[in-house]
């Protein structure tokens, strides 16, 4: 009796999620499907593949894509090189660690436009020429916390007894780091990479502001295509971006699953 009652209440509780499900279908799923549809439509709403042709044969679009990937890879690499030691050192400090982590996250809460414009003003005051260098600086400045955070979570979660065991077995600091800590923090490295790479290649406005409009990245050119009413080509570019997003989230999910399996096996 009691069981069937709870079951009944469970049924009625489900109803609460229906408005949200409807809302999400209408305003999130349908718009994404529309991107897919528009990618195959020409201006007269006829089926066409010309949008793909336009994008994949146009030198300037491919140049922008290549440029974005370049900026993305370099930014991610610099963030990893700077962020890994920071996350490692942070996880070693005991009490002050929490405050320090907070200090690293804090600037993230200030709107990125404000931070970007502030760096731009400083560069201009220092008479630094705005270009690729300043764009890269701005990207690293903006996304470094996204690298440090997942790395710190993973590294500080590594059981201390592993490093102690390595020491007891005669490993020096160097070996302990490369043979124990680095391999155990791969999942943090992967999620850090995706959390920096994807936003970097799709950023809108940062590169424009920090290069005085000279350097145009993929996010900027998606926006430009839509503002010029070129919905077809814009949709194709959004699809390319979506592929990047899906691949990265697939990698992350896969990795997390494997990790869980490992944990349950233990």
């Amino acid at each position: 009796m009691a069981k069937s009652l709870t079951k009944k209440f469970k049924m009625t509780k489900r109803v609460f999620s229906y408005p949200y499900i409807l809302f999400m279908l209408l305003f999130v799923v349908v718009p994404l499907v529309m991107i897919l549809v528009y990618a195959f439509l020409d201006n007269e709403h006829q089926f066409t593949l010309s949008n793909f042709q336009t994008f994949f044969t146009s030198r300037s679009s491919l140049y922008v894509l290549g440029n974005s990937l370049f900026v993305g890879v370099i930014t991610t690499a610099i963030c990893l090189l700077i962020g890994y030691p920071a996350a490692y050192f942070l996880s070693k400090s005991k009490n002050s660690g929490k405050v320090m982590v907070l200090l690293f996250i804090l600037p993230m809460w200030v709107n990125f436009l404000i931070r970007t414009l502030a760096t731009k003003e400083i560069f201009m005051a220092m008479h630094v020429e705005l270009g690729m260098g300043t764009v890269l600086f701005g990207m690293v400045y903006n996304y470094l916390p996204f690298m440090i955070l997942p790395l710190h979570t993973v590294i500080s979660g590594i059981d201390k007894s592993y490093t102690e065991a390595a020491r007891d077995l005669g490993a020096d600091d160097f070996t302990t780091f490369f043979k124990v800590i680095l391999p155990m923090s791969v999942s943090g490295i992967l999620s850090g990479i995706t959390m920096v790479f994807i936003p970097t290649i799709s950023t809108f406005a940062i590169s424009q502001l920090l290069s005085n409009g000279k350097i145009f990245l993929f996010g900027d050119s998606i926006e430009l295509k839509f503002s010029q009413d070129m919905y077809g080509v814009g949709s194709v570019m959004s699809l390319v971006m979506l592929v990047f997003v899906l691949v990265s989230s697939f990698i992350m999910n896969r990795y997390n699953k494997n990790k869980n399996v490992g944990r349950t096996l233990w």
Partner: protein
Amino acid sequence: MVKKIFEKSYLFILLAILYAPIVFIIVYSFSGSSNFNFDNGFTFESYKQIVTSDKAEALGLAIGNTFLIAIVSSVIATIMGTCAAIGIHALGKKFRHAVETVNQFPIINSEIVMAVSFMIFFVTCRFAEGYVRLIIAHIAFTTPYVVLSVLPKLESMDPNVYEAALDLGATPAYAMVKVMIPMITPGIISGFAMAFTLSLDDFIITQINKGAGTGIDTLSTFIYSDARVQGLEPFWYAIFSIIIVVVLAAVLIVNLINSTRAKKAKTLSFKGGK
């Protein structure tokens, strides 16, 4: 020892670079100029210009719009997201997985793709330009965060408490309001705070969906349109400083409250264990 000093100085140098632009803006907001000099001495001129400059009216409107959109969208997002979480919690396994996957879309997707997908949708379905589009878009990208912050609270809730209320004669509605909602309130509050700040902070989705003809600007789109043309006028230094101080203070206070609460909970559970 040398290693310790090296590690600490590495972190401090990084922090110094991270905070330099912010500190510069605040310091030079008292210079009354935008050229990084103190030729005018220490002055509140920049702050006065917030209300006296010829852009003061547009600025006021933009701030008003920012808060209007943030409040309306985050209240709706919180109500819908909380209800959704309660419903999702009771869904069957397969359906629940599907809903949770859709819930992840706006979170993992790149903002620019979300923004243009909203735009295509609104244009195709001929939605009225302006506030309606912006508020719908903001609800759509903030509600998943509310769901994500309420769901874990439901998971960790003891179902027996709710059922005990039912056994004692409470109607399901009464039990929900009096028993379940109070137990998940921390999740609802943090979900609301999340939705509100995300909406306040948003630039890309607003910029692309505000429509050219409406003239609606939020603070971030106004900053973008104004600062892109020329450099920053002195009053922007003042505005930025105010925003920075308010935001940093708010985050610090929230963190302080959370950590003291965590400490309290720790000592309480310790006492309980004894």
